[in-house]
């Protein structure tokens, strides 16, 4: 097998002229946080929340486990920049340079085909948003979080940071201090959104961090499928993506949150995603991690009421220089709840994947069922894979099962395909795509297609 490529060409590695209107100086301080709040004309309660979070961030140590974050310098990062000061509703009105960016990323095509509404974030501001009229008439709110703070303060104040409080972890505290953009989705009781709602994120400015804060509230009996995918161009300085996603699924509600992350290989992707599922509610996380230099992300579902359900599908692909430290957490706080976690990871070209998961059952949470399946594929001898599943069970009346396998590409399967005329890289790509199938088949079509193509690209570079 020839040596893997030194630098995998990043398909989305292009830049835009940096036409930013306002940005803070590099580094983090009280005055930076106050400037951010001032630029957004925020009410006092939000400004105070940010400042308190900054104190918490400064008092907390970095995590001592997980991916190696020693290359991250918080003093060099620019925490806020806005590209335009106007919000637009139609594609035609979006500024040319930004439109070109999304054009190359294929957003207009997606808009035509599958999606009813697209929220696009560019450099910390949500620039474009559009919502189908029928949703608006049903009382659905879909806007960026900044707007929500101004227009719907009561709802925001009621739920913001109730799922991920600032003291939860250092990166959540950072996000709480400097968050900007992100989506706010409120679905009234009984309303079902049958089309995926989508958002794109992108880091463009050198050393710019992305700190979007998303809050999704699904009232009783409602359902929604939210989809996001993001890319970023290559820069030499480290870029940081420290987002927080909070999901509240009330009684009988159903929320599915799909992410496909393909950040360029210099980005530190440290995200806290958590959902509270109440009685008979279901939350599904579909989490695809393809890019970034280091990812630490463990979508979780906290089940608070009987009948609640959490399903987490996690996909991690790590190439040279990458470490995907991903997984899931299923926390059973009520009886008669169930969870499934399925994780597929692939490491090649010296990449490293780690599955880190937790299934926790507290005393009193009887009749809980949980099933975890994590499989890892290591393609070559330079790569590595770890699995750390934690099961903490405090009630005996439960049934928990876990299974993990680690293997390489099956030689017989490879031979079979090659003997039918496929090149080794094509055969490997086919097998790897098959390995990931349980997860890719849960993705919206264009993501599944993009995912398969990306894998083909990776395999071409590393095999044959």
């Amino acid at each position, binding site marked *: 097998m020839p040596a893997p490529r030194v630098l995998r060409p990043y398909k989305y590695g292009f830049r835009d002229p940096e036409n930013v209107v306002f940005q803070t100086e590099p580094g983090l301080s009280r005055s930076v946080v106050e400037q951010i709040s001032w630029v957004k004309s925020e009410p006092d309660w939000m400004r105070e929340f940010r400042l308190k979070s900054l104190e918490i961030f400064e008092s907390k140590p970095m995590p001592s486990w997980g991916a190696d974050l020693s290359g991250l310098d918080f003093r060099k990062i620019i925490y806020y920049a806005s590209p335009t000061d106007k919000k637009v509703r139609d594609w035609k009105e979006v500024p040319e340079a930004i439109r070109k960016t999304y054009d190359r990323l294929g957003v207009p095509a997606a808009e035509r085909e599958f999606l009813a509404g697209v929220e696009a974030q560019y450099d910390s501001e949500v620039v474009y948003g559009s919502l189908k009229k029928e949703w608006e008439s049903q009382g659905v709110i879909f806007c960026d979080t900044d707007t929500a703070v101004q227009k719907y303060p009561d709802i925001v104040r009621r739920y913001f940071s109730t799922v991920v409080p600032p003291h939860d972890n250092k990166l959540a505290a950072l996000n709480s201090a400097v968050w900007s953009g992100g989506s706010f989705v409120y679905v009234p009781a009984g309303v079902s959104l049958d089309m995926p709602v989508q958002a794109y994120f992108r880091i463009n400015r050198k050393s710019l961090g992305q700190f979007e804060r998303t809050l999704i509230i699904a009232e009783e009996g409602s359902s929604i499928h939210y989809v996001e995918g993001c890319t970023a161009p290559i820069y030499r300085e480290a870029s940081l993506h420290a987002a927080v996603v909070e999901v509240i699924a009330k009684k009988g509600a159903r929320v599915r949150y799909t992410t496909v992350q393909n950040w360029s290989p210099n980005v530190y992707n440290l995200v806290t995603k958590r959902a509270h599922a109440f009685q008979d509610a279901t939350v599904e996380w579909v989490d695809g991690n393809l890019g970034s230099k280091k990812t630490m992300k463990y979508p979780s579902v906290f089940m608070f009421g009987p009948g609640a359900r959490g399903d987490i599908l996690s996909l991690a692909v790590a190439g040279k220089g990458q470490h995907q430290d991903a997984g899931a957490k299923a926390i059973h706080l009520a009886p008669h709840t169930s969870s499934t976690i399925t994780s597929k990871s692939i490491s090649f070209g010296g990449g490293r994947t780690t599955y880190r998961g937790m299934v926790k059952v507290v005393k009193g949470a009887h009749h809980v069922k949980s099933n975890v399946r994590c499989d890892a594929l290591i393609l*070559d001898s330079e790569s*590595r894979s770890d699995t750390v599943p934690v099961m903490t069970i405090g009630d005996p009346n439960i049934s928990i099962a876990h299974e993990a396998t680690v293997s390489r590409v099956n030689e017989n399967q490879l031979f079979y395909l090659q003997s039918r005329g496929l090149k080794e890289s094509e055969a490997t790509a086919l097998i790897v795509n098959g390995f990931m199938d349980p997860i890719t088949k849960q993705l919206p079509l264009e993501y599944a297609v993009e995912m398969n193509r990306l894998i083909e690209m990776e395999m071409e570079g590393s095999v044959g």
Partner: protein
Amino acid sequence: MKKTIVLVGNEQREETVEFRRDGRAKVVAVVIGRGTATPSLNLHVLHDRQDTESDIVIRVLALDQSRINVRGLLDIRKGAKGTRTYLKADALMLGEESKVDLVPSLEIDENEVQAGHGASVGRVDDEQLFYLTSRGIDRKSAERMVAEGFLKSVFPELTRRDQNKIRKVLDHAFDRAPLR
């Protein structure tokens, strides 16, 4: 090489399994928690040579208010081509106040290997209990039978001393001799 580990008290044990002369290892561990005991087992299986095999079976029985902690690490270093390893950990929780913390982990630095693990935590199947009690067997004895059945498949691997140790613990726990 065969290694058996039996923890029935309040022991904290750390064990490493390495392959010096032997290329194959079978490890059988039984951890029984009683009363308010908090036994803990930290098992590290290290594969750093080529073509070694290991098969690890762990059975955990949590009674009363015990709190049991088991960590089983399958560690495959770079260069350990041809490694085959599998760990199975099963925990039976009989005590209403019992707690089990189970972390079977894998650290794999080599791709020409076969590695896996499986774990389960649960309580006695109600159907099994019903079957026994409907035949006139009292609940305590029925539970003991299920506990014995749970450990039965690994019993033959243990030394006579360990087998007796376990029987004694079960006698105490269910405070009666087993039905014959």
